[in-house]
């Protein structure tokens, strides 16, 4: 237990110390909120869908959580490069608790970063339907964070070098983000796109966050939570399995 805690704390300390990273990671979400939010807003409104900012803000929170969680999971690669991974791998503790500690740490960092972006959306003009919805939305955000931190842990354990990282960002993280329905409504999509969005776990995350915050949901919040829980368990299992098989 103390092992899980100390590795969780390690992730948190590293995050809080990297101010440049915190500020730098605000860039992309701000751009989406500012540029897309205000440019597509009038079109969205004319289509009779209401405020685009209200619609996409939960999606941008989801995006932040996705990127941060993936990034911290992939940090296993950094630890491999700088050697710290070895220190944890030869320690007399089950690899499962090492993986859990890291993953929860990465997920916590992702939730914190998501909270930061949530605050930004409030400043830009996003308004949740009730204040009570916020804690519930954060529970779903936490689930999303665990899902992707676990996925990234599995990938980080399987990659041997930094070159693979760019591939993961381009061929996995970007599609997950664009297919999630963070930027567009899911109804009336072409069949192929409809299938792809349904395979994307982030779709359910964004839908759940949006459902709790502004009451607009495609699948229903309960449905979203169940899918996220199931995917979370599978990814944690896969991540733990990959992590247990690391050779250096």
């Amino acid at each position, binding site marked *: 237990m*103390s*092992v899980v805690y*100390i*590795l969780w704390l*390690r992730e948190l*300390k*590293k995050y809080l*110390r*990297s101010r440049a990273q915190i500020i730098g990671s605000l860039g992309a979400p701000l751009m989406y909120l500012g540029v897309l939010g205000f440019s597509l807003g009038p079109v969205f409104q004319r289509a009779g869908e209401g405020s685009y900012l209200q619609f996409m803000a939960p999606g941008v929170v989801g995006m932040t959580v996705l990127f941060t969680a993936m990034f911290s999971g992939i940090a296993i690669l950094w*630890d491999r490069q*700088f*050697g*710290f*991974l*070895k*220190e*944890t*791998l*030869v*320690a*007399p*503790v*089950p690899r499962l608790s090492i993986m859990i500690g890291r993953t929860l740490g990465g997920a916590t960092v992702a939730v914190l970063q998501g909270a930061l972006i949530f605050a930004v959306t409030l400043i830009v003009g996003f308004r949740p339907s009730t204040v009570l919805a916020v804690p519930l939305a954060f529970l779903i955000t936490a689930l999303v964070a665990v899902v992707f931190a676990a996925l990234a842990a599995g990938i980080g354990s399987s990659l041997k070098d930094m070159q693979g990282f760019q591939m993961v960002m381009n061929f996995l993280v970007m599609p997950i983000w664009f297919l999630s329905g963070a930027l567009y409504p899911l109804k009336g999509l072409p069949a192929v796109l409809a299938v792809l969005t349904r395979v994307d776990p982030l779709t359910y995350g964004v839908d759940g966050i949006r459902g709790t915050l502004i009451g607009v949901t495609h699948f229903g919040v309960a449905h979203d939570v169940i899918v996220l829980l199931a995917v979370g368990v599978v990814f944690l299992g896969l991540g733990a399995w990959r992590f247990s098989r690391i*050779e*250096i």
Partner: protein
Amino acid sequence: MSDPVPIIRVQHVVKSFGSVTAVDDISFDVHRGEIFAFLGPNGAGKTTTIKLLTTLLQPTAGMLELDGLDPIVQPTEVRRRFGVVFQDPSLDQDLTAWENLDIHGVLYHVPRRVRRERAESLLRAFELWERRDDLVKTFSGGMRRRLEIARGLLHTPKVLFLDEPTLGLDPQSRNQMWTYVKQLNASDQVTVFLTTHYMDEADRVADRIAIIDHGRIVATGSSAELRERTRTASLEEAFLALTGTTIRDENATATDQMRQFVRAWRR
């Protein structure tokens, strides 16, 4: 005293990476409480052997045992029994010196109070106490090395693996380290398995030495036995007689090369 079960048993172990055989059918025992040195040039298979014994790699063939346990079958049990200082850096550079030691203590189940006491005494011994709250990335190479060793000594394992521990250390820290290691060895019967390519170090510290070259063990014995067997006056000459080469030290000096040259002409 006779030793019923050696703490480390290695029998006919082979480790290949693709077509390269890093360790080629090696066998040796390490007795409880001894200081055992693997002496050999760079690329001889020393680090691979340590990785095999510390559960980081699995052998291609052969049998390994640490305290009667198989590292492949019971990795966690085996990990409970050893500590290791790696040749390459393995510190977290984004954490402070103190935090690095603290995490290590938690990973090795050292009780909080003991952890703090030992961390302080080690940081003082290795002259890092004043810098304990600084991030490791601000440390010089030598300071990092010292911290790495201090961390390896934080808990009291049954076997302590030291992979080229003194590489990059100044003589003062080197002495400090050996004093500490010998003290651990004497007071807590910690078995020490070290690799080195420094002759004088193996000669001075180790109870027994295994000479390894090109993935094979050429000879095993105490420094005196090795000298006796080869009828030579120094370990260096014994090494030359056994392997046919001087140690391929990356910082071989011009004097070394001259000596080798002279030796070759004398024959």
